C-alpha cells in the first residue's frame, strides 16, 4: 500500500485526525451489504494481514465495522464537497447504532459498486441513503443487543445501545461494543422489516447541529484535498488544451518548454474518441518537478491548433437565436385546458423573454488529480463527485479491466457538478502511464474557466392571458436551450422532459390553461450540470414573470403569488412526462401546501409589506426543486449610481427531516451567495468558439461586500421523507433579487447577469 507523505514543517498535526489515514485504509468486507440489489460481497483488496484483523472485527454491512477495542468505524461513501455529507450520513448510522459519535472514526470509501451509487450530485445523498444508513446502524444494534442479551440471559428487547455500549437498564448492566464483537459477528444479519429505529424523541445526533468531521484538519491546514495529495516521487503536470472544444493539435514545438529547468517531459494527450462524454479533451502536457514550472513550460509551448467544427461559435448570436426559437411553437411537454381560446378571449396579454447565460462552476479548488500507473494497473486520488464513473472513465481511456482501476476520493474544494466529470482524472492517469511515475495534474484557473462543462444557456418566452382583474387565464411557456445529453450524444439537440421538468412543466399555478413547450437548440460546447441545473434559468423566468403579472394587475407581489399557488393540493401532473428527480410521485408528491407554507413564512420573517425608501426593495420567489420546498425574500439596496448591495436575505426551506440542521443552514447561506454571484456578474461567453473569460477578474464570484450581508435561514421542522438540500436554495435567489430590484428602482431585469446593465435611478 502506498503511504502518502504530507510533510508539514510545523510540529503540530501528529495527534490530529488526518483525513488521509481514512482515505487509504479502505478495506474489504465480510458480510452481506444492505444496499438494494447487492448481496454476497467479495473480500475486495484486503491483504492477508488486513483480512486477519478484519475477521476479528464485527462487520454487519459495508458501511460499518467495530473492532474488539470497541472502535466504531463508519464508511463515508459519498464525496465531501462542502455540504457536510461526510458527516451527516455517518451520523445516521451512529444514531441507530447507539455509537458514541465523538469516538467514531470515518473511513472514505474507494469507488466501488458495493456501496450503491456514489454519484454525489442531484442533492440526493440523504434522500437516497437515509434509510440505507438507518438499516446499517439498526441491524448492527440488533445483533449487538442480541449478543449481550444471550450473555446476560435476558431478552434482547430489554437492551439498548448507547455510547458504544449495550445496556440492560433493569439490571443496570453495561457492556462495551468491543467485548461483543466476536459473538455479534456470528449472528445472522436481521431482516430489514424486523429492525427497530430510534423514535424522534430518542435521537441524540440526527436533528442536532453537529460539527463536521473534518473541521480540525481544515482549520490547521492538514486536511487533504485533491490539490494536496502526494505520494513519493510525485511529478507535477499542466496541460494546454485547444481553445475551442472539438479542436486538436496540428503541430507542437516544445523546444523552449523543454529548455526550462525542472521540465521532465512533454506529452501529447490524444483527443477524445467519438463524442466528449467525460473523456479528456486532449492537448499537450508538460510534466515537471513542480507545478509552477509545468505551468510556465505550458505557456512556452508553441502549438498550432486545428480549431475544429465549433470555431464559429458566437454565444451572443446564439443567445439571440434561442430567443427567436422560443417565438415559434416547439415540442409540447404539458398541455392543460386549451390556451388558444383563452388567449382569444383575454382582455389583456403580457409576454416577456428571459435569458440566462452559460456559467462555469469555478470551484475554489480547480480540477486536479494524482494518479499512479504501475504494473498494468492504475490508482487515482481525486476530488471526484463520482468515483465509480471515474473508474469507468479510466477503464475506457486506458483500456483496463475494472479491477485494475482503483479510485480514492479526497476532500473536494467545492464541486458544484464540475467534479462529476472525470476528464481531469483521466489526464493524470494517461500522463502517469506515459511517464512511469506518479503524476499530479493541476488545472489553472484559466483552464478551469475555459474548459468546463458549461451550464446551459437558456431563453424562456412567457406569455399570459388575463381577465379584467388581471387574473391569469392562460399561460404559455417556451424554453430553448442545448440539453445536457448533447455531451454524450451529438444528435441530442432539443430540451428533454427531465430538464423541462425542472421548474417549467411542473409550474404549480392555479391557471386553467397551461402549455409548456421546448424548442430545439444544438449544443456548440460541452454542456454539463451545475448546482441546481435548469432550475436556475427556469425559476428565474417563471418567478420573474409572476412578479410582472402582479405589478400589471396592481396587486402586491406576495399576495398575487399566494393566490396563484391556489388551493392546498397535490399538483396533478398526470399525462406529463415528469422525472420528479427520479422519485415516484407517490413517495414525493408535489405538495402545494408545503410550497405555500415556506412562501408565507419567508414573507412574514422579512416583514413583507413594510415601507422602504426608493432604491431599497424586497422581492420574493418560491420554487420546489430536488423534492424540497424553498422560498426566498431578498432585500436590495441599489445606489443611484446603480450599484446593488444585499443587506439581507430570508431563506426558508422545507426539506423534510433535516439530519444536520447546521449544514442545511450553511447550504442555504451558501446558496444565497452562489445565487448572488450568478445574478451579479457570472457569465461565460464564447467568440470564435473560444471562451472569453479566464479568471476571477472577468468571471467574478461575489466577494464579502457583494454577497448577502445576512441570510436569515428558517428550516421547517418536519419528519417527512428527506428531500434535497445542496441545490434547493439557489433557484429562487435570482428572481427574488431581480424582483426586489424592480420594487426598488422600477427597472425590470430579464437577462442575467446584471453586470453591464443600467440600474441607475433618480
Amino acid at each position, binding site marked *: 500500500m502506498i503511504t502518502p507523505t504530507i510533510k508539514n514543517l510545523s510540529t503540530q498535526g501528529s495527534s490530529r485526525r488526518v483525513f488521509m489515514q481514512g482515505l487509504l485504509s479502505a478495506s474489504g468486507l465480510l458480510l452481506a451489504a444492505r444496499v438494494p440489489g447487492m448481496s454476497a460481497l467479495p473480500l475486495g483488496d484486503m491483504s492477508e494481514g488486513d483480512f486477519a484483523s478484519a475477521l476479528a472485527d464485527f462487520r454487519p454491512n459495508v458501511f460499518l465495522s467495530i473492532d474488539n477495542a470497541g472502535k466504531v468505524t463508519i464508511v463515508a461513501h459519498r464525496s465531501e464537497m462542502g455540504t457536510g455529507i461526510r458527516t451527516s450520513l455517518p451520523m445516521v448510522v451512529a444514531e441507530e447504532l447507539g455509537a458514541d459519535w465523538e469516538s467514531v472514526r470515518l473511513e472514505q470509501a474507494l469507488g466501488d459498486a458495493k456501496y450503491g451509487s456514489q454519484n454525489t450530485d442531484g442533492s440526493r445523498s440523504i434522500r437516497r441513503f437515509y434509510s440505507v444508513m438507518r438499516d446499517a446502524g439498526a441491524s448492527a444494534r440488533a445483533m449487538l443487543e442480541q449478543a449481550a442479551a444471550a450473555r446476560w440471559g435476558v431478552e434482547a428487547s430489554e437492551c439498548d445501545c448507547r455510547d458504544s455500549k449495550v445496556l440492560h437498564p433493569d439490571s443496570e448492566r453495561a457492556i462495551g461494543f468491543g467485548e461483543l464483537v466476536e459473538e455479534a459477528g456470528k449472528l445472522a444479519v436481521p431482516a430489514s422489516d424486523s429492525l427497530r429505529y430510534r423514535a424522534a424523541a430518542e435521537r441524540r445526533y440526527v436533528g442536532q447541529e453537529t460539527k463536521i468531521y473534518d473541521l480540525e484538519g481544515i482549520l490547521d*491546514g492538514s486536511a487533504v484535498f485533491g490539490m494536496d495529495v502526494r505520494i513519493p516521487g510525485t511529478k507535477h503536470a499542466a496541460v494546454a488544451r485547444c481553445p475551442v472544444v472539438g479542436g486538436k493539435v496540428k503541430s507542437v514545438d516544445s523546444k523552449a518548454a523543454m529548455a526550462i529547468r525542472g521540465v521532465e517531459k512533454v506529452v501529447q494527450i490524444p483527443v477524445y474518441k467519438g463524442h466528449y462524454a467525460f473523456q479528456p479533451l486532449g492537448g499537450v502536457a508538460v510534466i515537471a518537478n513542480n507545478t509552477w514550472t509545468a505551468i510556465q513550460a505550458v505557456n512556452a509551448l508553441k502549438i498550432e491548433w486545428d480549431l475544429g467544427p465549433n470555431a464559429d461559435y458566437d454565444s451572443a448570436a446564439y443567445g439571440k437565436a434561442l430567443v427567436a426559437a422560443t417565438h415559434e411553437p416547439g415540442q409540447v411537454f404539458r398541455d392543460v385546458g386549451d390556451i388558444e381560446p383563452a388567449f382569444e378571449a383575454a382582455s389583456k396579454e403580457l409576454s416577456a423573454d428571459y435569458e440566462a447565460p452559460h456559467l462555469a462552476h469555478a470551484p475554489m479548488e480547480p480540477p486536479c488529480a494524482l494518479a499512479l500507473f504501475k504494473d498494468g494497473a492504475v490508482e487515482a486520488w481525486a476530488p471526484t463527485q463520482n468515483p465509480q464513473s471515474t473508474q469507468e472513465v479510466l477503464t475506457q481511456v486506458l483500456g483496463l479491466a475494472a479491477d485494475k482501476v482503483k479510485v480514492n476520493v479526497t476532500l473536494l474544494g467545492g464541486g458544484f457538478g464540475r467534479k462529476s466529470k472525470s476528464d481531469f482524472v483521466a489526464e493524470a492517469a494517461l500522463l502517469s502511464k506515459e511517464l512511469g511515475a506518479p503524476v499530479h495534474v493541476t488545472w489553472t484557473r484559466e483552464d478551469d474557466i475555459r474548459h468546463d462543462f458549461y451550464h446551459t444557456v437558456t431563453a424562456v418566452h412567457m406569455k399570459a392571458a388575463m381577465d379584467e382583474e388581471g387574473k391569469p387565464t392562460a399561460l404559455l411557456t417556451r424554453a430553448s436551450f442545448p440539453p445536457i445529453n448533447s455531451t454524450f450524444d451529438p444528435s441530442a439537440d432539443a430540451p428533454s422532459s427531465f430538464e423541462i421538468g425542472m421548474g417549467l412543466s411542473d409550474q404549480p399555478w392555479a391557471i386553467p390553461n397551461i402549455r409548456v413547450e421546448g424548442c430545439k437548440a444544438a449544443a456548440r460546447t460541452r454542456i454539463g450540470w451545475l448546482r441546481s441545473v435548469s432550475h436556475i434559468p427556469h425559476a428565474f423566468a417563471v418567478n420573474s414573470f409572476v412578479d410582472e403579472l402582479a405589478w400589471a394587475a396592481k396587486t402586491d407581489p406576495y399576495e398575487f403569488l399566494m393566490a396563484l399557488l391556489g388551493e392546498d393540493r397535490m399538483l396533478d401532473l398526470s399525462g406529463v412526462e415528469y422525472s420528479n428527480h427520479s422519485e415516484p410521485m407517490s413517495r414525493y408528491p408535489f405538495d402545494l401546501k408545503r410550497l405555500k407554507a415556506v412562501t408565507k413564512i419567508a414573507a412574514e420573517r422579512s416583514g413583507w409589506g413594510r415601507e422602504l425608501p426608493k432604491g431599497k426593495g424586497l422581492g420574493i420567489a418560491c420554487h420546489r426543486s430536488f423534492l424540497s420546498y424553498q422560498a426566498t425574500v431578498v432585500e436590495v439596496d441599489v445606489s443611484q449610481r446603480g450599484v446593488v448591495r444585499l443587506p439581507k436575505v430570508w431563506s426558508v426551506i422545507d426539506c423534510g427531516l433535516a439530519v444536520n440542521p447546521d449544514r442545511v443552514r450553511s447550504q442555504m447561506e451558501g446558496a444565497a451567495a452562489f445565487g*448572488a454571484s450568478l445574478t451579479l456578474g457570472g457569465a461565460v461567453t464564447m467568440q470564435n468558439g473560444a471562451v472569453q473569460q479566464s479568471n476571477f477578474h472577468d468571471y467574478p464570484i461575489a466577494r464579502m461586500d457583494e454577497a448577502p450581508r445576512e441570510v436569515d435561514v428558517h428550516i421547517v421542522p418536519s419528519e417527512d421523507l428527506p428531500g434535497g438540500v445542496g441545490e434547493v436554495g439557489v433557484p429562487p435567489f435570482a428572481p427574488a433579487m431581480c424582483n426586489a430590484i424592480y420594487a426598488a428602482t422600477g427597472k425590470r431585469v430579464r437577462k442575467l447577469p446584471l453586470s453591464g446593465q443600467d440600474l441607475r435611478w433618480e
Partner: protein
Amino acid sequence: MTTLRINGRQVTVDDLDPSTPLLWVLRDRLGMTGTKFGCGMSLCGACTIHLNGTAVRSCVTPLAAAADKDVTTIEGLSEQGDHPVQKAWAECDVPQCGYCQPGQMMSAAALLARKKRPSDQDIDSAMRGNICRCGTYQRIRKAIHSAAEEMK
C-alpha cells in the same frame, strides 16, 4: 540559494529559480499544502500567508522577496490549532468545503493583529480579496468579531 524562516524554522531552498512564487515553493518543494492555489493572479486570497506579519498572496510573491524574512503559513499560525481565529472559526462552524479557509484565516489573523476591534467596514476591506465560492462570508464576519472579542 534563498534562506528564509518558515513558521520559525530556517529553510534553505537552492534548487528553484528565485522567481518561483512562494506558493509553489511551499506546496511542491516543502510539502506544506495548507496554503492553497485558487487563481495564481492575486485575485482570490486562497494562498494568503504572512510575510513579516503582513498578509500577502503567495502566488505572486517570488521566493526572492522572502529572503531572510519571516513566513507564516496556516500550519504555523498556532502550535495547537488554537489561534483565536481558528477557535472562532470552529465555534461558528465557518467552513463548508474548507478550501478557501486557510487563506481566509490568514487574512483575518493579519487584520486582527493590526486592528483590535475591526468594524464591519474594516472587515470588508481586509477580506474582500478572499473569495469563498461556498459562500461562508456571513460566518467569517461573525467569527472575526468573536475572535476580536476573545483577543481583547
